[in-house]
């Protein structure tokens, strides 16, 4: 298992997991969202190829109501 920080919360994940596989596991595929990994954007086109690593800090965001 690898340890990551996902939206500020520590999580244990399977090794060799791609960003896309993580989104699939959380029911987030097809939603309008954006992913940042260690301060860098992971473009949608690269979700399948980018693999998560131990210690990664991930942010997954959506648009919400605001002014």
């Amino acid at each position, binding site marked *: 298992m690898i340890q990551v920080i996902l939206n500020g919360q520590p999580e244990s994940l399977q090794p060799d997991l791609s960003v896309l596989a993580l989104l699939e596991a959380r029911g*987030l595929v097809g939603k*309008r*969202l954006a992913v940042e990994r260690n301060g860098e954007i992971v*473009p949608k086109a690269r979700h399948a190829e980018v693999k998560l690593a131990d210690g990664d800090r991930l942010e997954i*965001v959506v648009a*919400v109501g605001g*002014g």
Partner: protein
Amino acid sequence: MNDPLVIAGKAYHSRLLVGTGKYKDFAETREAIDASGAAIVTVAIRRTNIGQNPGEPNLLDVLPPEKFTILPNTAGCYTADDAVRTLRLARELLDGHALVKLEVLGDPKNLFPNMPETLKAAETLVKDGFDVMVYCADDPIQAKMLEDIGCCAIMPLASLIGSGMGIINPWNLRLIIDNAKVPVLVDAGVGTASDAAIAMELGCDGVLMNTAIAAAGRPVLMASAMRKAVEAGREAFLAGRMPRKFYSADPSSPTQGLIGS
């Protein structure tokens, strides 16, 4: 009247920009935005639930980016770095969309902007290809600095965010408007329709508001009122008001031909 608001080279049919926060539900959000006639709507960027709440509705399903120009904001950011990161995420979320609203706050109590951090973030974002509409203090010098950096719209507060105190700084707003070659929009402080009309009569190019509509007793009706107020204020500005004549009345009806004279 064909009088579009042009921001970063693109024309918009409405000079009223509205936020999407504080509504009862998404249905009311959409109804109010339709009543406002706004073309540009602001959204915030926040962490998603990560599987705890599957099937949660998404704001962008209610406000499709194909129909509205979505203006992501950096509300809640207190540093240039956080604001820049947030807007890079927004650009990814919105498929490369460049138009953004930058706000870097300085104090959670009064939500006044931190201008040094705002200027820093604006420089980074403009260099990175963003079209930056920027919330700022009503300071004509720093407003000009933001314009010189390359911001596409300057958006001073008229009074504190969410306060509904109205246009308390008309003289500063006029100084900013007179100095600027890019659109100037009042962002924050409007409480009711007359405030929006006053902003437009001063020569603002547009008004951005959220709480004034969302916190009204009847938000959808207030949205409609704001639409009319912005249009009325704009037309009054373009028409040019009559000069004020202090202490001297001037009758509108003929002084000759009165009966019994």
